């Protein structure tokens, strides 16, 4: 029997997250867990994906661009914006144009891997392929699935 997760009044529901990824996604979205009510369901049954995670964040309305940051980990995530207990807006995440800070560059000789330099890794999506990113610094092209493994 599918698990029921309590409804939220106002906020964002992220659904169809791969099982076990909800804590990481919470981290990527910079949710202040000390001040925010978060409902997290891990490894629940899903008709579409077998198992999935669900994340409900009370009081936070995710902008599309912000939500797209989770696409790296959860490419099929859906985002529901909840107002007054009902879905006010619904969209699927898209691969972000720019990934900043959360993934390290796989090139050991990239300047972003030099701990002395004040620089965060930045990856820009290739215009020709949604699933390829280029390091803004060393210019290496990296597939999105490889980036997923490089999350810091």
């Amino acid at each position, binding site marked *: 029997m599918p698990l029921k997760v309590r409804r939220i009044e106002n906020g964002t529901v992220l659904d169809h997250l791969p099982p076990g990824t909800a804590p990481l996604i919470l981290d990527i979205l910079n949710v202040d867990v000390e001040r925010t009510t978060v409902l997290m369901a891990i490894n629940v049954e899903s008709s579409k994906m077998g198992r999935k995670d669900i994340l409900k964040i009370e009081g936070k309305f995710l902008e599309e661009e912000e939500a797209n940051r989770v696409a790296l980990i959860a490419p099929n995530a859906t985002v529901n914006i909840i107002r007054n207990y009902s879905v006010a807006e619904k969209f699927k995440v898209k691969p972000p144009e720019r990934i900043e800070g959360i993934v390290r560059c796989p090139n050991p000789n990239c*300047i972003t891997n030099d701990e002395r*330099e004040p*620089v965060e890794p930045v990856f820009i999506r290739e215009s020709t392929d949604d699933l390829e990113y280029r390091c803004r610094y060393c210019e290496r092209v990296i597939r999105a699935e490889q980036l997923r493994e490089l999350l810091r």
Partner: protein
Amino acid sequence: MLENRHVISVRDFTREEIEVILDHAERMEEVYERGGDDRLSGKVLATLFFSPSTRTRLSFETAMLRLGGDVISLVGKEAASTAKGENLADTVRTVEKYCDAIVLRHPKEGAARLAADYASVPVINAGDGANQHPTQTFLDLYTIRKEKGRIEGLKVGLMGDLKYGRTVHSLAYALALFGAEIHLISPEELRMPRYIVRELEEAGAADVEEHRDVRPILGELDVLYVIRIQKEMFPDPEEYERVKGSYRITRELIEEHAREDLIIMHPLPRVDEVDPDVDELPQARYFDQVRNGVVVRMALLDLLLGGEE
């Protein structure tokens, strides 16, 4: 269009912008021939070389001096001890107070982009690890256009290590932007990476073809650009011994197979991939590239520092 621009990667430039540089270099020929002028008098160029390349540094410094500017530089042991003492971001924020433009060569990929993030004066990348060296590409394009009158539609052979060769990736990309027909000639082990080949097609190359042997295609080429194959790049040393002969340009090969109006280019320094007795052939252009490098860098420095386009 180019005043105060950073010059970090060929991919930051459109074809039109590269043409502005090449056109300006054409005008700079006459200045170069009469020994220079003083249009950059009062301007200071800083050359920071954290990895050695005497050739490149001298070329930039000559270009600046020929236009009446001054040069300060950080090289060798001094550069090494600076790098030990502080990070690149701090060095750049200090040096920019002394100068009007910075030329940087650094062993780490992405170093020039980082420097540009921190500098308010233009930064020119003179090599960041195995990544980019855009002025080499500009001077290569300039040499081709000068010799052939155009780049679009030319059949250009790139031969040697196409996998790791830094200059060849940016050159191939730029040739594609200009609509050249690109022939990639390399051993199987050192083929150009797939994603770059795909990119060449998307960037506008008239055609991209791969070859294991230069002979069948040599007679059709307008330009043959030769790059060194390093033994260390081969997983198997025997394999290297087996293929290296096929990627060497000899006098006989050129005389037998090449067109009279072929031009042979090489980024230099060479080891043994172009025989010394090719030098006297009418096709050899690699020492002209060195000369053109100064002209192109003069043009670039002038444009970055506010010269009329």
